[in-house]
């Protein structure tokens, strides 16, 4: 019988050790959580800005022939890197699928999410903080011309191709439900397969954001054989997102985006930035940090950070032209919503749109 007693004693001892170990663990972690390290400090120490993005959509985020990440979204990431670290190349692109966008930004493992993310209220509440709309899009439909369809309301009975994991899918579902139209959705993971299915006529309709439809249409063998229907069935304001919980970082990214838009509105571009910094326009000089301030110090940035951003990445117009405009996938900006606001001060720039920045002062 004695060995049973020994056994009990041993069990008690082992439990005590385990519990003690667990307790220690918990205490240690409590201490660790105390000092909140600001994301800016983390980024500066790490030496690069980590952006979650994509590389499969020409214009927004793609790989060039040398394996370099390029695109509108990537350039926004570069702009932040140039502002914080003075080096537009100090970025790391984490590739994520559409379904991963929520968990990725929620976990705070990335500094910035720039992956053609539509700003919706529930995402703003649940995922992270939306910075600013940097591109206005809307969902549309593309059909083959010989079907003779002229309106989205005639699409009853059609087979519709769509890529998965995006608001596109939900908007499509809403549209057909709202209008009591029967349809057959075919959901694909990747754009290349969708495009194949559409080209070969497995589906009659291809739905996506209008900008991407336009770009893809231009890549088809006979662009003239396809029409993009006039209806826009959704609002798709796209913009970068930062994780919840660090206001300084939120404001900082907001200021960088405002800065590149402001720079275009005041005619500052990568070619003339040093001349403008020495010029006589007070607003421009304030932007470039050569006179006065607009809050750089509070944000933890250098006085002249905008000079680095503009000289290495360019202003909003340059980023647009390089990726989405004539040098990229050739989406017209003039007269669309992605032009600058109607009475922007610049003379030779597209106006009448909704791209607007708060005053920098």
């Amino acid at each position, binding site marked *: 019988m004695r060995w049973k007693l020994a056994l009990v004693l041993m069990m008690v001892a082992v439990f005590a050790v385990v519990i003690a170990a667990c307790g220690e663990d918990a205490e240690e972690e409590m201490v660790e959580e105390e000092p909140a390290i600001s994301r800016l400090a983390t980024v500066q120490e790490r030496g690069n800005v980590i952006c979650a993005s994509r590389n*499969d959509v020409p214009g927004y985020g793609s*790989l060039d022939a040398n394996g370099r990440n390029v695109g509108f979204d990537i350039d926004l990431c570069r702009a932040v890197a140039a502002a914080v670290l003075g080096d537009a190349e100090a970025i790391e692109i984490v*590739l*994520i699928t559409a379904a*991963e966008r929520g968990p990725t930004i929620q976990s*705070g493992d990335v500094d910035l999410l720039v992956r053609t993310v539509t700003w919706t209220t529930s995402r703003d509440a649940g995922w992270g903080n939306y910075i600013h709309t940097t591109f206005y899009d809307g969902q549309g439909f593309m059909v083959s011309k010989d079907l003779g369809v002229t309106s989205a309301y005639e699409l009853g009975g059609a087979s519709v191709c769509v890529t998965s994991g995006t608001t596109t899918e939900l908007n499509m579902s809403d549209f057909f439900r709202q209008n009591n139209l029967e349809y057959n959705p075919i959901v694909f993971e990747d754009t290349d397969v969708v495009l194949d299915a559409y080209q070969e006529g497995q589906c009659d309709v291809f739905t996506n954001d209008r900008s991407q439809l336009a770009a*893809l249409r231009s890549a088809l063998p006979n662009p003239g054989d396809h029409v993009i229907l006039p209806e826009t069935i959704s609002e798709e304001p796209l913009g970068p997102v930062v994780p919840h919980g660090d206001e300084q970082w939120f404001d900082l990214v907001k200021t960088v985006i405002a800065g590149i838009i402001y720079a275009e509105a005041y005619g500052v571009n990568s070619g003339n930035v040093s001349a403008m910094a020495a010029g006589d326009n007070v607003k421009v000089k304030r932007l470039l940090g050569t006179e006065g301030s607009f809050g750089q110090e509070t944000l933890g940035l250098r006085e002249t950070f905008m000079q680095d951003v503009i000289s290495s990445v360019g202003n909003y117009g340059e980023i647009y032209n390089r990726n989405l405009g004539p040098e990229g996938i050739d989406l017209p900006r003039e007269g669309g919503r992605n032009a600058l606001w109607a009475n922007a001060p610049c003379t030779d720039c597209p106006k009448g749109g909704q791209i607007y920045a708060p005053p920098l002062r």
Partner: protein
Amino acid sequence: MSAAVATGAMGRPPPPPPMTVGYVGWLRQNLFSSWINSLVTVVLAAVLAWAAIGLISWVIVTADWEVITSRVQLYLVGLYPQEGTWRPQVAVLLLSALLGVSWRSWGGTARGFAIGLSAVALIVGVIPHGLQPLNRVLVLAIPAAVGLGYLVSPRLIAGRPRRVVAAALLAIFVGLLLIRGIEGVPGLDPVNTNTIGGLLLNLLLALFGIGASMPIGIGLALGRQSNLPVVKWACVAFIEIIRGVPLITLLFMSRHILPLTFPENIKIDTLYITGITIMLFSSAYMAENVRGGMAAVAPGQTEAARALGLRGWQTTLLITLPQGLRNIIPAIVGQFISLFKDTSLVFIIGMLDLVEMGRVTIQSNLEFVDNGREVYLFIAVVFWIFCFSMSYVSRRIERALGVGRR
């Protein structure tokens, strides 16, 4: 077909009459032995010829291979920095030299591979397609490395074949160091692991997965046979859960769950997360292989060990396990092949392996939007070459070990 089977089951016919030997005899015996056999032969030959002509004309005439030739580097090493591409190439040279050593020592299969590799390297090295001079020299150095290995082989081995295993492990280790980089050594700066991609990524992940899963798999297999119920059931549960769910769900989970088990300011690279996941995934399968191999060890072995007075754990560690491991070498190669193919699933967490690199190339360049067929054919051929040669080697090993023949 039924007739074909019938004759097969009948066994070999009696000694050949004169008409059944030689070229004609071979044809008669193997292709036209009965009217139904002849019919099968003719129909199959016609279908085969039609398919082959279609494929060849497409490959030569219709297909546009620019989507491949313009970015070979992306397919091979992903976004690995251009100025560092000599590093994986040197790793390849080390392995080529090892191949040369095997050629001299064992001939046979190794000779075939060595000659094939050298020939491919010569062709690739000579055809001009925008290779950097340094890379071209390193490609052309492959036959030289094979030859060097062949020459030093007798001296290296010197009657102790184990040295080859040591040399192989050393070469792999040095290769990995080169690819990853060493802190503080000029010219060997550590690369950002997220830039490793393409075929290199598939190979690294599969190699790491199979290597690292070996000890864990053995542990799990032993645990599964343990007489401690808790250990046994924990191992069974782990093995069955991992084997029961698709790898893509495991990858998704670990990308989002694993970081949670580390403190918030420690960021683990996606490559490591992927490696850990693939290792765990592979170890469940490895455990089952090891268990099968140990079960195949003749019971007489255990009995003999017991009779000699070995304890239970000694029997397992010294008798059953080593013999069991020898039994499963072909199974491990088979698992390596399937793991290699499975590494094409890492796209789900944003890694640019060979397959994903192909898809990204099509999608992110409007001019390649219609070149999907070329890309997929290329990828299929690359995977096929690797998997087929490994399964060929595995069959040779199987024959050499005489597994299933004792």
